């Protein structure tokens, strides 16, 4: 048979059609998919004995109790601890996903030493002995040259045994340069320092408040201890407590409040002083407190009556004049009113003028140390170690001026000024820093003007990170000495931020350490012992665990048993004994800052003509912006109007967008005096015209593929603005412009 073109084609086409009409391909496809579906790459989790371990979460300063479910030796789920004084069973989104950090790909598994250039990501694994001896060598050399003060340390907090071990180490070694990540807690502490004359922490008896006036605080966006604030917010609903939120953007807090008053951003101090004006003018203040327990009232009166009349304040703030008057009356006449401040989650310390004005509001209505008011909560005092052994080098070293200028001539009241440190290093004004330890902090991500922070780090000869995770700071370190993750170690958590009762939580190992990591406390003790002399003598403990147990003394058993220690009967001191100023009274005009004229609005960077818009950040519970980045579960919950692929959306009012020729979903270039970024437009009616907002917590360059390179880091677009009183960062935004692409 001859095969011609025609018969070939009919055979081929007919055959193909025939096969497709037969059940064969469909059956095969079905079989292949069922067969491949059963390939063993879908894991079958092993079953085992169930147990629970109570511990304390350290992913933020909230201090929540956690209860971790285990199957044999695996941790499988983190839940909130029932009956815990902070969170009573609830837990936030970040705390719930902690196991993704513990078992995740961003863990640093062994000590690493940099190979090649800084930040190139090339590492060499080294042993603990070698790593520690390398540091000790460097430190001994510096010390023998009399340059012990050129060693610095950046921590997440300055309270608790681990920060205090670092403090002790630096003191005995001879350096004053212990710094910590700033927040509104620093501003509140300074406010108490200036107006009460005491060193204390702030607590809010917010559960018993009758009227809440919030100057932009993200009550349900992570301000204070988040889970506690959620619970309080629900309690207010049930009790029909009035909540007034003042901020330029409809945040979740604003949406949940009884009343939201938009305000021109950055004019909150003016509004607070305007409210004070009305309260004083109409004699609505608490006479008992003002007459018997305060000084400086007449100065305050003169000051606000002359310059802060409601019409002037209305002009500046954009808040209606009648609103100002009625708000002041409602606040002063309410039972147990409370005013709070610190924008969003409170990661930027803010301006002292705002904190002092808001505190004066609280004082005027007499809610200091009263039910439902602001309380002075004593700092934890359980750390009672013997005096540090000092030699001549140490004594000389710690007397040197601090690298960040805190406590110096310009800023005598501040204890830490981390925000000043990049500028001082970059400008070469201070002495050069030769070695830096970083623990519990991620300054290369979380400090404003990231680029200048990076430049400053580049000038530091030797950077050591103690992070458990490969974050931005670790990536740019010379040596990483990984700490155990928080679910693998002991540590005391000395406070829950904003709580009115002293609570000390215990973080304890839920699982055995997974990798070749070491407790940072043990490393500090080992370094001290290796350095010898007075430094070794200052550290009489064998290990961190024994140090902790010894330190906690009789609290230890309670902490081990319950997971925390608390003093539920604590009440703040009565007005008679609450103030330790020179007058023994509450000072409306602090002697420290002399006059109210320094209570001015904070000017932000950039001029209106070239940057017609104002850029402000916003906070969200779904975006962690502290030293920990979002784990995969959390980034998964971020809405597609905030992040799409790797693109970040900015929020802008439809009117402003239209005026600039911008539309939903279109790309634009957002520029500020500090930086530039390509963004997408999201129209949001809830934001004041003329303002654009971007979220904090995105734009990581480190961590895993689930987080890295998504969105933009707000800190790349903003620089710090110095507060004239505290020297802390008071920037609430920056001028900006948007250009179409």
């Amino acid at each position: 048979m001859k095969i011609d073109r025609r018969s070939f084609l009919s055979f081929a086409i007919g055959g193909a059609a025939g096969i497709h009409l037969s059940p064969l391909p469909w059956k095969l496809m079905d079989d292949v998919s069922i067969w491949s579906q059963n390939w063993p790459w879908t894991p079958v989790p092993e079953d085992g004995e169930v147990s629970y371990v109570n511990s304390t979460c350290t992913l933020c300063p909230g201090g929540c109790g956690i209860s971790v479910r285990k199957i044999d030796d695996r941790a499988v789920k983190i839940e909130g601890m029932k009956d815990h004084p902070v969170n009573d069973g609830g837990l936030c989104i970040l705390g719930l996903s902690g196991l993704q950090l513990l078992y995740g790909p961003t863990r640093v598994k062994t000590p690493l030493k940099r190979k090649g250039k800084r930040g190139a990501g090339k590492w060499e694994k080294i042993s603990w002995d070698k790593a520690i001896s390398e540091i000790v060598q460097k430190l001994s050399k510096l010390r023998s040259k009399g340059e012990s003060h050129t060693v610095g340390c950046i921590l997440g907090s300055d309270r608790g045994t681990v920060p205090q071990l670092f403090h002790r180490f630096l003191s005995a070694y001879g350096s004053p340069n212990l710094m910590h990540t700033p927040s509104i807690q620093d501003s509140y502490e300074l406010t108490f320092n200036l107006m009460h004359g005491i060193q204390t922490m702030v607590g809010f008896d917010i559960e018993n408040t009758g009227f809440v006036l919030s100057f932009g605080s993200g009550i349900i966006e992570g301000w204070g201890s988040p889970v506690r604030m959620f619970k309080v917010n629900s309690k207010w609903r049930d009790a029909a407590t009035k909540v007034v939120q003042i901020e330029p953007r409809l945040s979740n807090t604003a949406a949940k409040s009884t009343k939201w008053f938009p305000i021109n951003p950055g004019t909150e101090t003016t509004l607070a002083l305007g409210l004070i004006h009305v309260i004083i003018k109409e004699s609505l203040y608490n006479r008992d407190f003002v007459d018997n327990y305060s000084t400086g009232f007449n100065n305050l009166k003169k000051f606000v009556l002359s310059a802060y009349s409601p019409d002037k304040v209305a002009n500046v703030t954009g808040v209606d004049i009648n609103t100002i008057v009625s708000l002041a009356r409602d606040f002063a006449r309410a039972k147990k009113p409370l005013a709070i401040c610190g924008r969003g989650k409170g990661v930027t310390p803010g301006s002292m003028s705002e904190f002092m004005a808001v505190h004066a509001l609280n004082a005027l209505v007499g809610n200091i140390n009263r039910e439902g008011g602001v309380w002075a909560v004593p700092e934890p005092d359980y750390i009672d170690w013997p005096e540090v052994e000092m030699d001549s080098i140490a004594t000389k070293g710690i007397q040197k001026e601090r690298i960040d200028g805190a406590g110096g001539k310009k800023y005598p009241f501040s204890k830490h000024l981390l925000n000043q440190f990049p500028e001082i290093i970059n400008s070469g004004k201070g002495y050069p820093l030769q070695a830096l330890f970083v623990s519990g902090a991620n300054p290369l991500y979380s400090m404003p003007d990231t680029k200048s922070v990076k430049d400053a780090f580049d000038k530091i000869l030797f950077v050591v990170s103690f992070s458990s995770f490969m974050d931005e700071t670790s990536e740019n370190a010379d040596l990483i000495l990984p700490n155990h993750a928080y679910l693998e170690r002991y540590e005391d958590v000395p406070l829950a931020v904003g709580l009115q009762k002293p609570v000390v939580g215990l973080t304890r190992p839920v699982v055995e350490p997974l990798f070749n990591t070491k407790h940072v406390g043990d490393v500090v003790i080992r370094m001290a012992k290796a350095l010898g002399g007075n430094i070794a003598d200052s550290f009489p403990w064998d290990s961190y665990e024994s140090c902790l147990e010894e330190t906690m003394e009789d609290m230890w058993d309670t902490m081990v048993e319950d997971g925390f220690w608390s003093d539920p009967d604590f009440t703040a001191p009565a007005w008679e004994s609450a103030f330790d100023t020179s007058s023994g009274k509450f000072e409306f005009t602090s002697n420290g800052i002399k006059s109210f004229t320094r209570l001015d609005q904070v000017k932000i960077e950039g001029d209106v003509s070239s940057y017609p818009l104002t850029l402000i950040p916003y906070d969200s519970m779904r975006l962690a912006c502290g030293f920990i980045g979002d784990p995969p579960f959390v980034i998964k919950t971020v809405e597609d109007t905030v992040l799409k692929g790797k693109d970040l959306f900015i929020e802008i009012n439809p009117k402003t967008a239209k005026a600039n020729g911008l539309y939903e979903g279109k790309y634009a270039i957002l520029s500020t005096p500090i930086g530039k970024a390509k963004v997408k437009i999201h129209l949001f009616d809830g934001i004041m015209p003329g303002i654009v907002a971007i979220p904090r917590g995105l734009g990581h360059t480190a961590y895993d593929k689930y987080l890295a390179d998504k969105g933009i880091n707000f800190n790349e677009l903003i620089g710090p603005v110095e507060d004239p009183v505290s020297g802390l960062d008071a920037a609430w935004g920056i001028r900006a412009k948007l250009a179409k692409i």
Partner: protein
Amino acid sequence: MKSRQQKTKRYGMVIDLDKCTGCGACMVACMAENNVPFKEDESDKLDSITWMRVYKLTNGKSFPKTDLCYLPRPCMHCEGDHGHPPCVSVCPAVATDYSRETGIVSQIYTRCFGCRYCMVACPYHARYFNWWDPVWPDGMEKYLSPNVSPRMRGVVEKCSFCFHRYQLAMDRAYYEGKRELEEDEYQTACTQACPAGAIIFGDLNNTGHDVNKLKKSPNAFRLLERLGTNPKVYYTSSREWVRRAGDNYLKKESK
């Protein structure tokens, strides 16, 4: 000898939208409890598996009259007409079924062959298809819970009201010689985690349970109620625009 006959339960939820803060804790508690996988990019919400998803609603008014509200959406566990929810009616494999004992709509992954009829039938977008096999980064498989089997590619999954927790609670109850569960003995992971206490879970039939009382609030509504799906998840909101957002109303209509 106690009667083997049990009272029919209708487990359901009442979610207080005035209290919900949109924090997302319910979503993550659910993912952690139920071994829900994740991918590198989860910003395409059509293929992002979230048994519990929190939607953001706005009232559409311009500044400064704008208002917003968050709405958590689990599976509604619709009762339909006498136990015939829309998804169950269309499933050719009996992979999903309505339990007359608990009122929970089940999903049996090994029966599902991925035709996705149920996804089309569900008016709440509560069902998700596994387009890919789940992949956990090296080491992360350690946190997987043995109570819920990880799903393979090609099957549909959805919220189960943490049915494994019901089973565990029932096992414990039988062991203790009880036939009935107390309200707090069976709670879903999202209810347990919600820091605002906005989600209340229980047996809608049981007059002793909070949900029974709360669903009768004048502010209570259900989503797309007029479709006749008869959902067992109720919402309450004091704001009228939120209640109206729960269904498609004509402008003139009042609710």
